């Protein structure tokens, strides 16, 4: 080998070798580009798949099947005491009035068929009638058509989830019920329309009347508490750390602390709430006040970090001008720096609030998972929030709850989109470039 002189290439040969290697190298380049495209394509298609699967289940969840019956509202039976008070109506016989008008359409024979017919209409029918009578007592004594939600099994049957072909023993509804439902459909008594319950009802074990109003109000209350605590505290901390804090050990510890808190898993904040707020201070469980406090501690680092960035972005010339005309440091900050930094701070706060809105785990630990039918009227009433409601409904076995869960998710996502859009608009509208 040593004796061989290095082979000298002619210009032509050299350019041919380079050419072929360039083709290879370009191919490699194109390959990397393709990998990048595939990666982004995959990520985006996951996103689309997620949305399609949620929306395809959730949109039908906003609708449900109703049966329309001509009901004779018998005054004596509905209102036995005759004073139209809620308890008199509660003692009334609305349920059997509804059933009788149903029997008139489908003519069940014998006890067995009547028992089957009872399964068609939601158990909530009597509440609906009582409410109608309370709203307008003049309808008593008249015969009027009223629509009632059908039971969730019938709903699933009408949607085709419960198949006619399945043997009767494996179906949740038997042949007699199917016969009656067919009869109702043949008489045009069954309709499919926007659900009365999904947006205005509260938690219930019967999926056909379950709604998200209670959880939605709970979410609003919790977020309000979270904002009232976290925003002033976060802004105050940011102002202090940016403008006043002496450069010493304590300041350093505070800063490290805030960064660490941002990294702590959210479930740990739930433990904090459980051990300190409930365990030591004896606060009641399940209340939006407590949930808001826990979420406030969780979002505080986000707000502090973004507020500090916003304060830092205000140019020193503004401050210098204020100092120049004799403002004190505090006046400079409150009259000039804070108003200019406010859009940035609000953007960070809204993003933090959006995180808090979607947070579930810490709220599970402080008992917001309890089954609460009443809609909370204040921050100290027990309540739940949207994500926790979603978590609870996802656990229920009834087919209809899957759709209701997806509908609740859609509401939550719309809520989140609004918040994030607000943040983006705020940033675009109010942010000034210096």
């Amino acid at each position: 080998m040593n004796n061989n002189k290095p082979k000298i290439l002619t210009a032509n040969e050299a350019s041919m070798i380079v050419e072929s290697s360039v083709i290879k190298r370009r191919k490699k380049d194109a390959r990397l580009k393709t990998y990048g495209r595939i990666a982004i394509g995959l990520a985006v298609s996951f996103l689309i798949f997620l949305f399609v699967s949620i929306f395809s289940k959730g949109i039908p969840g906003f609708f449900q099947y109703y049966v329309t019956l001509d009901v004779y509202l018998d005054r004596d039976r509905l209102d036995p005491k005759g004073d139209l008070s809620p308890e008199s109506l509660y003692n009334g016989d609305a349920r059997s009035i509804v059933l009788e008008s149903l029997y008139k359409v489908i003519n069940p024979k014998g006890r067995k068929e009547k028992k089957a017919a009872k399964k068609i209409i939601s158990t909530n029918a009597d509440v609906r009638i009582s409410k109608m009578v309370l709203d307008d007592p003049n309808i008593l004594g008249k015969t009027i058509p009223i629509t009632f939600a059908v039971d969730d099994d019938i709903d699933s049957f009408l949607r085709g989830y419960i198949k006619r072909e399945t043997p009767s023993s494996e179906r949740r509804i038997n042949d007699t019920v199917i016969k009656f439902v067919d009869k109702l459909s043949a008489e045009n008594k069954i309709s499919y329309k926007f659900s009365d319950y999904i947006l205005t009802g509260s938690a219930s074990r019967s999926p056909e009347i379950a709604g998200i109003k209670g959880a939605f109000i709970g979410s609003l209350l919790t977020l309000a508490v979270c904002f009232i605590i976290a925003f002033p505290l976060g802004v105050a901390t940011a102002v202090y750390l940016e403008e006043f804090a002496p450069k010493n050990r304590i300041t350093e510890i505070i800063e490290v602390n805030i960064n660490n808190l941002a990294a702590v898993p959210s479930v740990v904040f739930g433990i904090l709430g459980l051990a300190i707020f409930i365990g030591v201070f004896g606060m009641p469980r399940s209340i939006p006040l407590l949930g808001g406090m826990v979420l406030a501690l969780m979002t505080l680092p986000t707000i502090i970090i973004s507020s500090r960035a916003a304060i830092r972005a205000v140019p020193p010339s503004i401050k210098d001008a204020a100092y120049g005309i004799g403002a004190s440091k505090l006046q400079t900050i409150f009259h000039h720096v804070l108003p200019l930094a406010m859009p940035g701070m609000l953007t960070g706060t809204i993003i933090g609030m959006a995180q808090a809105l979607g947070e579930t785990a810490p709220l599970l630990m402080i008992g917001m998972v309890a089954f609460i039918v009443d809609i909370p009227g204040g921050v100290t009433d027990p309540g739940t929030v949207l994500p926790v409601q979603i978590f609870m409904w996802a656990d229920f076995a009834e087919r209809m709850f899957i759709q209701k869960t997806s509908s609740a998710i859609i509401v939550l996502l719309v809520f989140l989109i609004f918040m994030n859009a607000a943040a983006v608009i705020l940033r675009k509208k109010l942010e000034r470039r210096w």
Partner: protein
Amino acid sequence: MNEYSLLIILLLISTLWFYFGNKTALSLKKKQLKLNSLPHYYGIYVALYSFIPALFSYLLILVFDGILFSNLIIEFVPKEILNSPDFNKIIVLAQIDNAVRGIYFGEQPDWVTIASNQMIEWNYHSLILNFFCSISLALGIGYLGFKNINEEFRSRNSVEKIIISLLGLSSIIAILTTIGIVFSVIFESLRFFAIIPASEFLFGLIWNPQFEGAERAGSGQEGLATYGSVPLFVGTFLISLIALCVSVPIGLFSAVYLSEYANKKERSIFKPLLEILAGIPTVVYGFFAALTVAPLMRNGGSLIGLDVASESALAAGFVMGIMIIPFISSLSDDVINAVPQSLRDAGYGLGSTKNEVITNVIIPAALPGIIASIILAVSRAIGETMIVVMAAGLAANLSFNPLDAVTTVTAQIVTILVGDQEFESAKTLSAFALALTLIVITLILNFYALHVVKKYREQYE
């Protein structure tokens, strides 16, 4: 008359003080005296002077009377209940508390009625005391502040001092939160390790807290419940690993493409799209994993003859991977963008293709940041709760098979602490020990990520 009306009264008093302070300052000004500060600073000074001590005493009484009373009320519980083996302070207190609020279920024992009447009386006294203390503080100290007003007094400086110390106080909250977290976890963990040896917790291979048949210590029935946390950590590790297998390649390739190949328009479309993935609540991912992905995987597995559990680590890990894609892609994208253009230009100047510049120049230069982003994603994955609670199941199998059902640390914490619990039992305490290890692990990861970034950050500047 309740706590809220007292707060409003306090606010009214300080508003009045503001008015008086302001008025006095204005009248001084009318006498052609040269004031040190603007008149309203005198008002604010008096108002703050009256409100802050009063608020402090108000909160002090409000928070600590409950704690004091709940300790005193135990005196009213009969001896035989106190000494009975299933005595539970929390339940007894809740019983009395319900009686105070007038929520009854059936007949109450006599002592509950007596105790609750006593409690109502105490609460009333404490409210009166609170009214008296707070209002007299608001009036008294407010008056002291009011007397300070004269033309020599530098009210602005005092107001600013007060406000700055308030700002400083609010930054303490962050420290208090940390202290609260540390204490709540360490305190309970120590009690747990007093019952269960730490060696069993750290190295035990079976996690089975469900059979808490009897008291473990001293009852002769040892070994009914076992608290070996290894299966949980293996499960956490397995799911995080699957998540990383999904998110690291997708995240990194996306970041490289977006920062090096994509034009402005593509970037403005795809970057926000990827970030949407991070904004979706985890409970939505959990629902998606449990109801869409898991059945898909089970059916797909049975098609090719694999037996996939209905709550498999694979489904949970896969969905978690989707969730953390943006953490990796966004952070890496920022780091890659931060690589100085001169390095790229040097590479191109030597005739390199984009691919060569990326693999030989940009990636090595951005590596610390990329590693940091992956570490942060790992700490995210370890701390993630809802996806695993909903999709990975609760069976503490010691298994490295991604097709099995496994459980994680966070999922166990949630299942143990949700709902009713006895604070004294080893089962409840074990959740705190798990949380302690979780915090320690995430903090170490976080510190390490920051360290990596810090150490290599200025190499190319």
